[in-house]
């Protein structure tokens, strides 16, 4: 018996949007079975993972704060992915954003100026863009594969941060701990509703997602990105330079990741520490695809992935399940999503004999 994949002549447009829903549902079911395998009542497990983190208002704020960088980075990555540019190094660009922003904040640690916060955010954007420009230029001048270069630059960024907080940026009054000074108040993103978590960066991320939607669907920029991504020769026929597009999408994505990084240190840690890079830059890749490479879709996908982090912590505390379950869940989700997409664009054909007699 033969089994093979055959391209469907017309993939269903509805299924394209249902694919993430199916992938999420199946992921939840499989995670349920994992709980069973660990001797935990699956309903209790799933409730603890997915519902409990949403029960309190403060956890909702925390969820939004965790989703914010995921969404922001993913929105930037969407520009790259739509242009068929594979920026896998958002984690490094995020880290450089944190370093640049943090450096400005620490350098003016006695400042009370209103301008310090904008300067910190701007520095973060610049840092992310500079780090993203490296793979872009390597691709343009040396045709170097951006998947490798952007990915390999990530540990460089992480080690750079590590060096800085142990060396030049170490807090002089910090008992030799690998940490920078605390940022001055003027460099901290304000929070709302008396909450530690709910900072105004959340609105910034949402705003960027809306702006990106307009740019992608109604502006020439998004049109150029889409054409470059799906038909490079047609892009040249339209007069769109592939070099310019490569630079632009890398810079947009670097700017978003850098902004996410600098907002994270400004609003959440308040100082530079070696554990700032938590993998958001990688998780954002899942967010971008789960959100169907659409910025509004990425907002919902970002919330879901943020929930997966919180659920992981919740089951670790309440049910003594290793928090590695979060990684398992995220991997399952990406795997199932890719599987769904494959089956939407293709179908299995079974044939019993070499020549099937059909009517």
């Amino acid at each position, binding site marked *: 018996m033969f089994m093979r994949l055959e391209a469907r002549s017309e993939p269903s447009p509805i299924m394209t949007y249902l694919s993430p829903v199916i992938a999420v549902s199946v992921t939840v079911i499989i995670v349920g079975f994992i709980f069973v395998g660990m001797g935990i009542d699956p309903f209790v497990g799933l409730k603890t993972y997915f519902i409990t983190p949403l029960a309190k208002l403060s956890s909702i704020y925390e969820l939004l704060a965790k989703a914010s960088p995921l969404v922001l980075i993913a929105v930037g990555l969407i520009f790259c992915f739509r242009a068929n540019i594979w920026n896998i190094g958002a984690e490094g660009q995020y880290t450089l954003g944190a370093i640049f922003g943090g450096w400005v904040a620490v350098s003016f640690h006695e400042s009370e100026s209103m301008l310090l916060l904008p300067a910190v955010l701007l520095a973060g954007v610049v840092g992310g863009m500079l780090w993203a420009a490296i793979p872009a230029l390597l691709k343009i001048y040396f045709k170097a594969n951006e998947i490798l270069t952007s990915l390999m630059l990530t540990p460089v960024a992480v080690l750079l941060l590590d060096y800085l907080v142990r060396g030049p940026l170490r807090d002089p009054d910090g008992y030799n701990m690998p940490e920078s000074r605390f940022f001055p108040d003027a460099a901290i993103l304000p929070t709302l509703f008396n909450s530690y978590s709910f900072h105004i960066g959340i609105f910034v991320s949402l705003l960027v997602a809306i702006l990106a939607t307009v740019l992608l669907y109604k502006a*020439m920029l998004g049109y150029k990105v889409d054409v470059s991504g799906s038909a490079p020769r047609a892009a040249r026929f339209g007069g769109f330079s592939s070099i310019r597009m490569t630079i632009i999408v890398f810079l947009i994505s670097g700017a978003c990741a850098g902004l996410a990084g600098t907002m994270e240190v400004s609003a959440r840690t308040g100082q530079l520490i070696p554990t700032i890079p938590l993998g958001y830059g990688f998780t954002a890749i899942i967010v971008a695809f789960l959100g169907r490479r659409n910025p509004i879709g990425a907002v919902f996908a970002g919330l879901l992935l943020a929930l997966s982090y919180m659920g992981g912590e919740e089951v670790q505390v309440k049910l003594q399940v290793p928090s590695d379950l979060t990684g398992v869940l995220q991997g399952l989700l990406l795997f199932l999503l890719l599987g769904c997409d494959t089956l939407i664009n293709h179908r299995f054909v079974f044939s019993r004999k070499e*020549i099937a007699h059909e009517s």
Partner: protein
Amino acid sequence: MTALLEVKSISKAFGDFYANSDISMKIMPGEIHALLGENGAGKSTLVKMMYGVLRPTAGEFHWNGQPIVMTGPAFARELGIGMVFQHFSLFEALTVGENVALSLPKDLAMSDVNQKVREVSENYGLPLDPDRAVHSLSVGERQRIEIVRCLLQDPKLLIMDEPTSVLTPQEADRLFETLEQLSSEGCSILYISHKLDEVRRLCNTATILRHGELVASCDPSKETPRSLAEMMVGTKISSVSKADEVTGDEKVRFSTSNLTVPAEDPLGTDLKAINMSVRSGEILGIAGVAGNGQDELFNALSGEVLANGSDAVVIDGVAVGKQGINQRRKLSAAFIPEERNGHAAVGDLSLSRNALLSTHATSPNQRRGLIDDGALRGYVDEVVKHFDVRASKDNANAASLSGGNLQKFAVGREMLREPGVLIVSQPTWGVDAGAAAVIRQALLDLASRGAAIVMISQDLEEIFEVSDSIAVISEGTLSEARPAKDITVEEVGLLMGGITGEGGDHVHAA
């Protein structure tokens, strides 16, 4: 007499689409059997099943009266079926002999292979030097390698897929002699083509396909080209009407001088000192065998690739050699590339977004970087109306249109802008006869309204049908343009072979 190969009710479905349905035919020993049909009629699908590349959905094959299951090309070769594909599978960096050796048993010495190649090429009038590297050979010579490769396996049935589409008329004549010799020795030939003259001249029997179905079997020598064409197309064919002749005192709207562009692709063709000038109302036809620099020429004329100097390309008196495609469009030039899907249009974008691709620089479809989708829809409606573009639904994705309809869209999109200069490559390639007539008439009408048109085409019939003057591109060099009424098909054929005034042999030795 038993048929060598009998096809019994063969069908082949791709998804819901039937490329072949219920086809039956017989190939007798020693006959030259034509398989006729337009592009997309299902010819290639049928022969790929005969050669074991594709499996039929239903039906069966009989070889010498015995039912067989074609399990793959290796099995087909074992039976004695050889096939020369339209696209060759040769390694450019290897020699002729080495390429042939790849399809022979491993233990054969290179000198033996070369000896065999020489023998076969002499016996069948296929001049080939086994020590030459393939990249230095013309397309005609490359085809000979493929034929020799098949002949070495002593085939009983040789399948040739559109063999003359890449040949000059003189090279085609040589091929016909070889095929006739093979047939007289008892080898059957299945000859796939859509060229009626050569089928009438060469073949004993013709099977005609249309939309995947067998519509007729006949003796082509007893039919007229017109009756064959009507069986192939299924309708009466309208002919285009040519406008009055261009007078020499109209102003030059488009010209190039010493346009020299190195190829981007290492295996591409360099353009060498191309000169042309096209007057208002004139259509310049550029003939040539595929792969002689047509792509490179289109890219250089359109501005997708910049020229060697500003003066190398001039539109309405403005030197634009160093300016990109959109600057040239702003000077009322328009461009229609050969490749519809992926070059002229983006398959997974809607027609209205595809309309934006070539109009964004010159039309109010976008303002300050924002796209006016309403205006684009209106533009598409106009194109659809004037050029009878048929799509499955309103504003469908480009990829869902048939080749002919997408080509009509690509032509109409540019025509609607009423360009003063039009550069078009292969305007009717792979388009059904009805659509081709519409497109050619549109080109003639545009010229009669004062536009200058450069048409790059490999279809000599088309070149002679619409051109006022004709030039030939060969290995990146353009011959001097001559008035269409003063040049014959044979002369154009010789120019296509690369040399003026000599025979078609060995012309690519340089």
